[in-house]
């Protein structure tokens, strides 16, 4: 029996990989969340179609399990049912994107409460709670506009730090450097740009820019990791575009695999 190829991440990219790979090889599709769809959500019409498609091809779904380690063709999976080393012929990492961190942006200053990644703000705002009176949303990532919209709906004033956001009450261009001020809770951010220094008072900061690939499988973090194909493109943003881009990546890998 041929060992399977492992695809981690059951969003549009992972589903796109599985849709191609499962026609030629056994595929195990893994996601730490117990439902497919990734950030797009399981009830999206396109996602439902992709899920049906990959299931028909015999893809084995392992949802609610986390890929922990990649070591010479073996993948360690853990879930509430147990842990298992899966022997594979290759690993596709399709774990999506996360917003840039303070360190990614070289942000210094204080480290008060009230500064959160956009992915976290989304969850908290979905709880319907008005978190802040004035929030600074930094960056133009896919989370920025939705977070700004949910926060405004709850009565929060929105300040964007972005070169082209049209969803804010106030906008500042991206600075050369910025820092955070505030001891217990955030009190503002300090933007240093060509025009000088601007202090922007606020009571919340959301990090919503410069998407970076989420990499959290030990041994499959850095570009060039042996046996690993990373499918975490910055564009296109739409589910169908991502699905197709992942199909292309999987086809390229499959050609090399079948020739080799």
């Amino acid at each position, binding site marked *: 029996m041929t060992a399977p190829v492992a695809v981690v991440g059951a969003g549009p990219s992972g589903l796109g990989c599985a849709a191609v790979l499962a026609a030629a090889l056994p595929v195990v599709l893994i996601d730490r969340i117990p439902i497919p769809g990734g950030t797009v959500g399981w009830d999206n019409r396109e996602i439902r179609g992709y899920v049906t498609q990959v299931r028909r091809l015999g893809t084995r779904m392992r949802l609610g399990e986390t890929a922990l380690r990649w070591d010479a063709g073996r993948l360690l999976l853990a879930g509430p049912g147990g842990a298992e080393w899966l022997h594979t012929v290759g690993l596709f990492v399709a774990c999506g994107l996360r917003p840039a961190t303070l*360190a990614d942006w070289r942000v210094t200053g204080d480290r008060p409460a009230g500064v959160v*990644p956009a992915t976290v703000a989304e969850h908290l705002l979905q709880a319907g709670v008005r978190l802040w009176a004035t929030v600074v949303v930094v960056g133009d990532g896919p989370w920025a506009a939705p977070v700004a919209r949910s926060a405004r709906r709850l009565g929060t004033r929105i300040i964007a730090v972005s070169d082209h956001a049209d969803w804010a009450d106030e906008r500042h261009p991206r600075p050369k*450097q910025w820092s955070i001020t505030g001891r217990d809770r955030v009190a503002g951010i300090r933007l240093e740009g060509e025009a000088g220094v601007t202090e922007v008072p606020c*009571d919340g900061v959301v990090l919503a820019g410069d998407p970076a690939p989420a990499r959290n499988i030990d041994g499959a973090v850095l570009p060039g990791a042996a046996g690993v194909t990373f499918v975490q493109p910055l564009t296109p943003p739409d589910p169908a575009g991502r699905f197709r881009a992942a199909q292309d990546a999987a086809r390229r890998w499959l050609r090399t695999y079948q020739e080799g």
Partner: protein
Amino acid sequence: MSSHPAPAGEVDVAVIGGGVLGTAVAARLSRTTASVCLLEAENDVCEGASKGNAGVAVAYYGPPGTQETALINASSPHWEELCARLSVPYRRTGAVMVALDDDEAVRLEHTHEEIRACGSRAERLTPRQVREAEPLVTDRCVAGLLMPDEGVIDPMALTAAYASLAAVNGAAIRLGSPVTEVTATADGRLRVTTGTATVTARFVINAAGVSAGHISRLAGGEPLDYWPRKGQYAVLDRAFAQRLSRIVFSTHTAATKGVNVVPTTHGSALLGPTATDHRDPGDTSTDPETIESVIRSAARLVPAITAGYVIKYFAANRPASDEQHRLRFDTRVPGLLHCTNRSAGVSISPAAADYVLELLTAAGLDASPCRGAADSLPPAPRLRTAADPGQLIRHDPLFGQVVCACEHVSAAEINRALQGPVPAVSVDGVRKRTGAAYGRCQGSLCMAGISFMTAMHTGAGPATVRQTARGTVGS
């Protein structure tokens, strides 16, 4: 449990300060018949210097002949045993100290002599031997020392474990209790007033770190000068740190011990610290110039270090003072015992706690060993470092529910942090105890989950849940 709980507000010993020294003392006293209460100004233990340090349990700090060195020597051989008992991550990695030019080689030889004079071990290495001991060290290295007894520890887990042991043995842990007044009573006791309660004690331990001068002043004790010495640090990703096997020390100068490269028990690496004296203990800000200099200095020792591996910066203040190590009774106020250290608090903590008990007993405290007192904590297994993750999960399926995707911290570990004898009350408290949200995505994937779990356990809502010990997520 302590065999004779004291009446509310009356204890034999009140410990002021929930850092590594205060909690170590409280844990030690909790295993005796003396009653003890720990008062901490912040809403969690380990909120000052004990949370912001390089995580090295040193075997040598120097100079020789001091009480500090004696306490380090008395503590160092026992870390494996102590950390196994308290379920605290510790690894005796050994260290290499690296000289990069002839001047440094001369100073290195002085340090070598001092290490020997202190009673610790070191071995002179050729550049080639240095790189065999730690292959990541620069080939510009001209000489080195191997210091086999140095090790890395999780200082936050250690502090939380000391506090937990104290609590398990019946010590009262009062958090969010800044001391506002210390007065002598007519019968020779000390009355300590906090924002929330009043405690009368026969002895008061001043383990308030950078605030120790303030506490002494409140009590009418000696005028002690303490000021914050800020250290800035950068944390490096496991992708780099997994290749680092030992601590890499820079050669000491007369003024500073310099920037070091330290593998952490979480699998990351720490660069730092810097040392800047200032006057505002609440200032733990970082600045770009200093952080760049930290990375640059570290990269001189280990050229594989680049800014691209940095996942976090932070700063913390250690208690600088005219008396670098102060473990003695106040000369003015009977019953007031100062217990502070400039930088080696973690490394002296086990022996310092024993010594405090000796001093108190000699001063008349009745503290015999308490039969049945716990001297260990239940094992605190971690999914990430488990030899057999499957066995953990069979025992408790929540070990298979990974919440922090980068650091592989499970729901079982987070629940334990939120339910322990001194539970986390904030997202940061969970991080301090488990390492969750400490990885390369800095909570992007897990902080919502941890917030909700913390909110559930503390009875807060999504906006009012604490992100740090001091501040809430929402305003």
